[in-house]
């Protein structure tokens, strides 16, 4: 080959493996030679944005300072373990599956759920809850590069027929929802809460984030992933390896273009039945102490699990790739290394225990195959039919991945007005507009989505997805565990700092209204192209805001995930740092048994309705989806509000309560009137004040005997409150003089998303 040809060869290779010239130089100097053919895919996978966090790592380090004494085993594992006392510990994490879900919604979402569940039970914790955070584009938009007609729909266990929706976005919503349900329902983990947003910025790049919560009951041990003990066996358990998902990690690390459709073969296919068998069998072998360490095969499959286990344990590993169970005889070693076939685990087992281990898995119909052994020296040997393909130190691949200090600017306030009187509001006083809200995709009931999820399997669910936040009962102590997700895209669009603070505080306040104090956070940071300074600036501002909020609330960030390159043909999504929160209720188990947790909707005619404010930021909507604000966020005041709300439910009986959110006080009162009782305003409040969103306000319904206590509580806490009306049967008469036919409103609300997307449940 002449030099010119060699150059072209190299260019092709770099492009194929998505490795930059600078990275190639780094590889050469690390190895002291040219990479061998089998090493290219290793670097490609482990140094992808998805696996190495190369654009975000230097900023994510800030989360480290939020960790406190309640977090165990944080370093190097999938997630930190939070000690709740009484030897009850939880572990949770949220992860994105945006790219696959846009290409193939059912399998994309399903395997997203499968992946996050494996992250949890690989730590020895039984998954007890799932939550999801979804962002879709405007209904009735056909994204580029994708066919109108549904393609590649898989037969599901939970009833999947070919979608008949005419528009692609409706098809995506339906597919994602069925995928989440199809997987979660089958494995028997309840989906207890979630959030669904619609905005045109997600037209060409939807967000599918799944969160799983696992519980370690008293006496159960945390399982770790670091490989240990030279001579120990490396055991492969689970589904056979196919060619699905090869280069998946690299795919998730670049932007979409017109050819996205061609990426369909990169999307993995999941089988929840296998996952269920894996959950039960893995938890059993861990309980019987048959395993030294364990790791799921997630992004970059066998490569990342083996290299990470060895690197963390500071040992080596010899792998016989030809021993890996395969379902396609034409599969090549490179594909075995990179395959993202689902439902697979890698275990380290002592030789003397291997037979018992294998018979345990056999009971569940699973093969546990020895594919290698642990070596003293820190090197990975890859063998293929007796030939040593390479011997390479895993440490530099895992720990010395490139780290980029992408250009960003210090955060400056966006869309801020100096004078409150400048704060404009679209003319939202019109009754017609308000009536539309009940059926509007942004505001209407999500019942058509969440009723496709099993919310009660496992017998821990106290409040499911038809409530603002989910509440589970911890089976041993009987205490309440709250689960909530956050991030409101309209606020992120307005200002990344306030939006990210709100992504933590809004759900924390929602939990507090139910008497639950947030104890820890997970994040799933969905952003556009990090090589664009304006995106990177929003990323850094968000990480800083989350860190600051986490510290104020003393709720550490125990795990996280970054999804960059949510960009299609140069258009980026709204920066969306989705948060997952878990909180703990009072010590007293009677909190759940006594039924004293406030409801979401009005409970009784004649009860007083109060508005409580710690108003710091006032938001105006200038035109459709264009927001501006006045004021400064005050995290101290908001933290006091969280503490006050949490304490309130322990002292005063609250009939119902809700945070004021998008749509302002008016919409909150309307929503609280969608149960069996309505509302009548006591005095005039201007339309602007009624429909303008304010950070933060909350509405409370209190009965006559508790009113005095309620007022004294807020007087003592020096928090502003006023009685604004009372609960009445059958009417909704707001404080700006508008009144509504509740029956019609309810009808429209209950039709929910089916009004826009026909084939939902």
């Amino acid at each position, binding site marked *: 080959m002449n030099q010119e040809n060699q150059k072209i060869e190299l260019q092709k290779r770099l492009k194929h493996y998505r490795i930059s010239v600078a990275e190639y130089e780094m590889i050469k100097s690390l190895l002291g030679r040219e990479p061998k053919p089998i090493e290219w895919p290793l670097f490609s996978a482990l140094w992808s944005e998805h696996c190495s966090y190369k654009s975000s790592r230097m900023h994510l380090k800030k989360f480290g300072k939020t960790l406190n004494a309640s977090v165990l085993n944080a370093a190097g594992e999938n997630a930190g373990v939070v000690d709740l006392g009484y030897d009850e510990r939880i572990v949770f994490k949220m992860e994105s599956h945006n790219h696959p879900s846009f290409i193939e919604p059912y399998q994309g979402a399903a395997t997203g759920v499968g992946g996050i569940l494996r992250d949890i039970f690989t730590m020895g914790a039984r998954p007890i809850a799932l939550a999801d955070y979804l962002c879709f584009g405007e209904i009735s938009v056909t994204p580029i590069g994708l066919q109108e007609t549904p393609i590649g729909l898989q037969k599901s*266990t*939970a*009833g*999947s*027929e070919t979608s008949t929706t005419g528009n692609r976005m409706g098809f995506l919503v339906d597919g994602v929802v*069925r995928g989440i*349900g*199809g997987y979660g*329902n*089958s*494995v*028997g983990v309840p989906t207890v809460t979630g959030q669904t947003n619609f905005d045109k910025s997600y037209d060409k790049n939807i967000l599918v984030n799944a969160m799983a919560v696992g519980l370690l009951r008293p006496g159960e041990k945390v399982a770790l992933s670091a490989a240990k003990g030279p001579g120990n066996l490396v055991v492969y358990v689970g589904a056979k390896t196919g060619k699905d998902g090869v280069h998946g990690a690299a795919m998730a690390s670049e932007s979409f273009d017109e050819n996205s459709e061609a990426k369909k073969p990169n999307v993995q296919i999941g*089988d*929840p*039945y*296998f996952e*269920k*068998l894996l959950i039960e069998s893995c938890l059993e072998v861990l309980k019987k102490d048959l395993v030294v360490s364990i790791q799921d095969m997630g992004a970059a499959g066998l490569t990342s699990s083996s290299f990470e286990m060895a690197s963390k344990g500071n040992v080596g590993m010899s792998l016989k790739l030809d021993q890996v169970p395969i379902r396609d005889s034409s599969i090549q070693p490179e594909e075995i290394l990179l395959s993202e076939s689902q439902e697979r685990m890698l275990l380290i087992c002592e030789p003397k225990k291997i037979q018992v281990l294998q018979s345990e898995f056999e009971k*569940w*119909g699973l093969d546990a195959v020895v594919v290698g052994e642990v070596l003293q020296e820190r090197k990975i040997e890859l063998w293929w039919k007796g030939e040593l393909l390479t011997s390479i130190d895993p440490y530099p691949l895992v720990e010395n991945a490139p780290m980029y200090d992408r250009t960003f600017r210090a955060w400056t306030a966006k869309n801020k007005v100096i004078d409150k009187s400048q704060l404009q509001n679209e003319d939202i006083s019109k009754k017609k507009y308000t009536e539309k809200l009940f059926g509007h995709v942004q505001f209407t009931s999500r019942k058509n989505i*969440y*009723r*496709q*999820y*099993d*919310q*009660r*399997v*496992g*017998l821990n*669910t*106290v409040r*499911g997805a038809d409530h603002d936040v989910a509440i589970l*009962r911890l089976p041993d102590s009987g205490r309440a565990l709250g689960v909530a997700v956050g991030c409101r895209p309209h606020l992120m669009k307005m200002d990344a700092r306030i939006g990210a603070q709100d992504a933590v505080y809004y759900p924390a306040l929602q939990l507090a209204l139910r008497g639950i104090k947030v104890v820890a956070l997970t994040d799933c940071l969905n952003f556009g192209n990090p090589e664009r300074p304006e995106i990177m600036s929003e990323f850094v501002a968000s990480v800083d805001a989350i860190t600051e909020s986490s510290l104020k609330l003393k709720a550490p960030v125990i795990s996280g995930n970054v999804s960059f390159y949510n960009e299609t043909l140069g258009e980026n999504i709204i920066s969306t740092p989705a948060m997952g929160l878990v909180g703990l209720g009072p010590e007293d188990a009677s909190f*759940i*048994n006594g*039924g004293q947790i406030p409801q979401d909707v009005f409970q009784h005619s004649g009860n007083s309705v109060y508005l409580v404010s710690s108003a710091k930021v006032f938001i105006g909507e200038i035109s459709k989806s264009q927001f501006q604000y006045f004021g400064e966020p005050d995290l101290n005041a908001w933290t006091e509000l969280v503490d006050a709300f949490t304490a309130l439910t322990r002292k005063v009986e609250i009939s119902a309560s809700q945070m004021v959110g998008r749509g302002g006080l008016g919409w909150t009162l309307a929503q609280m009137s969608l149960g069996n009782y309505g509302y009548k305003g006591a005095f005039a409040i201007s339309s602007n004040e009624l429909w303008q969103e304010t950070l933060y306000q909350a509405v409370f319904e209190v009965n006559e005997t508790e009113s005095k206590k309620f007022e004294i509580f807020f007087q003592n806490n020096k928090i502003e409150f006023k009685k604004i009306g009372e609960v009445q049967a059958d009417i909704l008469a707001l404080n700006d003089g508008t009144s509504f036919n509740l029956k019609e409103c309810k009808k429209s609300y209950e039709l929910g998303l089916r009004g826009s997307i026909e*084939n*939902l*449940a």
Partner: protein
Amino acid sequence: MKKTAGKIGVVRFPGSNCDQDVYQFVAEKNYTPEYLWHLDHFDLKDYLALLLPGGFSYGDYLRSGALSARSPVMNSVREFANRGGPILGICNGFQVLAESGLLPGALVKNARLRFIDDWVNLKVENANPFWAKNWTGDKMYLPIAHGDGRYYAPADDLKKIEDGDQIWLRYVENPNGSLLNIAGVMNQKKNVAGLMPHPERAIFDWMGSVDGWSFL
């Protein structure tokens, strides 16, 4: 060991996911639960009754309940049924009993072809001599969670079921398109029964209803 009212077998298939819930329910009711694995044969004398829990046994491959109905443990279950032993199938357990021919009819895809999780009101059409036999209330309030819950049988069979007082429970508002609003049926001898709703998920106030408590 705590003295209990006797042993109840909980049949466990790979893919069952309400097995642990049903096990817990049995224990809460002061019986001794015991798992019966899908490959097992067991001594019938040992058990007061059998429960077949919900889930996605064998991954719902082929049809929900189809493979489980043909698993080894079902030989013992069938024998237990023939001797008059009480058996209850819940959700997927109901599907298994229907597939095995121990109960009449079939459970097919919900009318809207989507999984449904919701609360339903039920009417007891004919009381069962074993399960919820002491129920005296008007409407039962229980949760459902299924994709294949639409009760179906040919017209002739439906008539026989109705005439034989084999309809156990009916939905007050039909959620899934079940014929004759059927939520639960019994065999002719009434010792084998199945229902789609989940009584084990409604046994404490904090769950939203206690109507399931009466089933055992």
